[in-house]
């Protein structure tokens, strides 16, 4: 199996740059310190993407705009345009579809494709990789990195090696030894800050060091995650390329950061309802029913907690989920200022094979019919064509959560 991973270089920024150049913007923002950041007034002021010159000044993705401006006062800041990004991602996907029918859109800017299925293209994987890279640059106006590997993990690691506009291969054991093993262990997929710290304590600092460690020691330290990262360090990954419509989702959730700190329980419940509207809609769209409801809270002092409840039945009804979410909130919330609220559902069954309860068959059928009608109206006339009375004449959106009003491709390749 040979897998190609295509990853757009500083995606949001280079897509914005390509669109700006088309509109006659005088500079290519990829060549100067520039960032894409949310609006600080709505408390979304963090860096979403940075140009390579901005990265060199120590501005990282996820830091606050305030901090970035302190490091570089002449920093150019642009707001995100998610419709543009989705358009760029779709255009990139259209080009990739010409090479292989088996593609996994891993996120808005990353795709895996299986080279075995590139029937019409008998060229070697590396030739195909170069062709894809050059075509995207010429036709779409932004650069990509292409990683060629024996499996998904190696193609992803290859993709991250050196940026921008490069093709890298991790196909043989020598490649893994020479290119991947000298890297810092933090660079390995699935090794984060906490794992790096713990590995540092047993003197593992490079991927090679991790690969040569006894897997039993890692399993004792990190449980199954230890085995996973040991396999990854040795270039072992049996993950298949799964087309996005076959990805099984285990949970659906939405959250939102509120412009100000919430203190009023009634208002908190309204936000919870607008989030539940989104979650319920997505749940029904997936033709699932859930039996687990989770409410998550982030307080003004950045303390996060969640509270969950396993239901004795399965439901996809917005009102029912909302009722339980309210109960969870009132049980867990002690009145501290809320910065971020979230609702999540899990433990699904397909909506055509669930266990009915004897007592409320009629109400379930009525609720289903109502939800169906609401969903149909929303899909035909827009998500705000019909909404609950509580939201009338209020500043609150009747449906909250999700990037770009729910119309965006998220990490893992599903839509919110």
């Amino acid at each position, binding site marked *: 199996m040979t897998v190609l991973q295509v990853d757009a270089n500083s995606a949001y920024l280079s*897509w914005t740059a390509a669109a700006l150049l*088309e509109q*006659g913007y005088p500079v290519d923002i990829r060549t100067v310190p520039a960032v894409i950041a949310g609006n600080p007034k709505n408390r979304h002021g963090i860096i979403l993407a940075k140009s390579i010159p901005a990265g060199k000044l120590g501005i990282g993705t996820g830091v606050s705009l305030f901090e970035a401006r302190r490091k570089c006062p002449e920093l150019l800041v642009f707001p995100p345009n998610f419709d543009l990004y989705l358009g760029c991602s779709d255009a*990139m996907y259209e080009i990739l579809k010409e090479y292989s029918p088996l593609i996994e859109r891993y996120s808005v800017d990353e795709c895996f494709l299986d080279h075995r299925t590139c029937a019409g293209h008998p060229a070697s994987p590396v030739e195909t990789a170069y062709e894809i890279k050059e075509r995207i640059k010429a036709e779409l*106006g932004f650069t990509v990195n292409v990683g060629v590997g024996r499996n998904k993990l190696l193609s992803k690691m290859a993709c991250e090696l050196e940026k921008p506009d490069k093709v890298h291969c991790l196909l043989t054991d020598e490649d893994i030894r020479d290119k991947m093993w000298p890297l810092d262990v933090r660079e390995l997929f699935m090794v984060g800050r906490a794992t790096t710290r713990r590995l540092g304590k047993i003197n593992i600092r490079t991927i090679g060091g991790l690969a040569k460690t006894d897997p039993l020691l890692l399993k004792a330290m990190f449980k199954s995650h230890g085995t996973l990262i040991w396999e990854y360090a040795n270039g072992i990954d049996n993950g298949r390329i799964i087309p996005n419509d076959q990805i099984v989702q285990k949970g659906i959730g939405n959250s939102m950061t509120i412009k100000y700190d919430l203190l009023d329980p009634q208002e908190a419940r309204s936000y919870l309802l607008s989030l539940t509207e989104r979650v319920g809609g997505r749940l029904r769209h997936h033709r699932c029913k859930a039996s687990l409801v989770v409410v998550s809270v982030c307080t003004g002092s950045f303390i996060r907690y969640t509270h969950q409840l396993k239901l004795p039945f399965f439901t996809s009804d917005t009102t029912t989920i909302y009722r339980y979410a309210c109960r969870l909130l009132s049980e867990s919330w002690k009145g501290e200022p809320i910065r971020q609220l979230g609702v999540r559902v899990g433990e699904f069954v397909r909506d055509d094979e669930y266990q009915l309860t004897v007592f409320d068959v009629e109400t379930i059928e009525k609720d289903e019919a109502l939800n169906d009608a609401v969903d149909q109206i929303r899909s035909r006339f827009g998500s705000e064509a019909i909404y609950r009375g509580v939201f009338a004449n209020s500043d609150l959106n009747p449906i909250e959560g999700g990037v770009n009003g729910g119309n965006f491709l998220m990490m893992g390749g599903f839509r919110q």
Partner: protein
Amino acid sequence: MKIVAKPVDMIATFSVQGKPTPYKFRYEDRSGRRIEVRIDKIISADSRKLAGIDSIVYTCQSEIDQTLRIFELKYIVGQCRWELYKA
């Protein structure tokens, strides 16, 4: 030619297959004067997808103020909008 990217009023014809052909457009110059330009000749038409935006760029030739000028017009398909792209 320099990128102008200025929206213009346009009269265009659409073929049975849906392909647009610009005929005449109107724009405001720097002094606010409205100028109408009839397209005398279309030299080339290219479909493009830069930054994922579907567009057709026409290289055209017209006589403006008794000077023969070459310029580019752009039709942005998704927005059904015309622009004086380069002049």
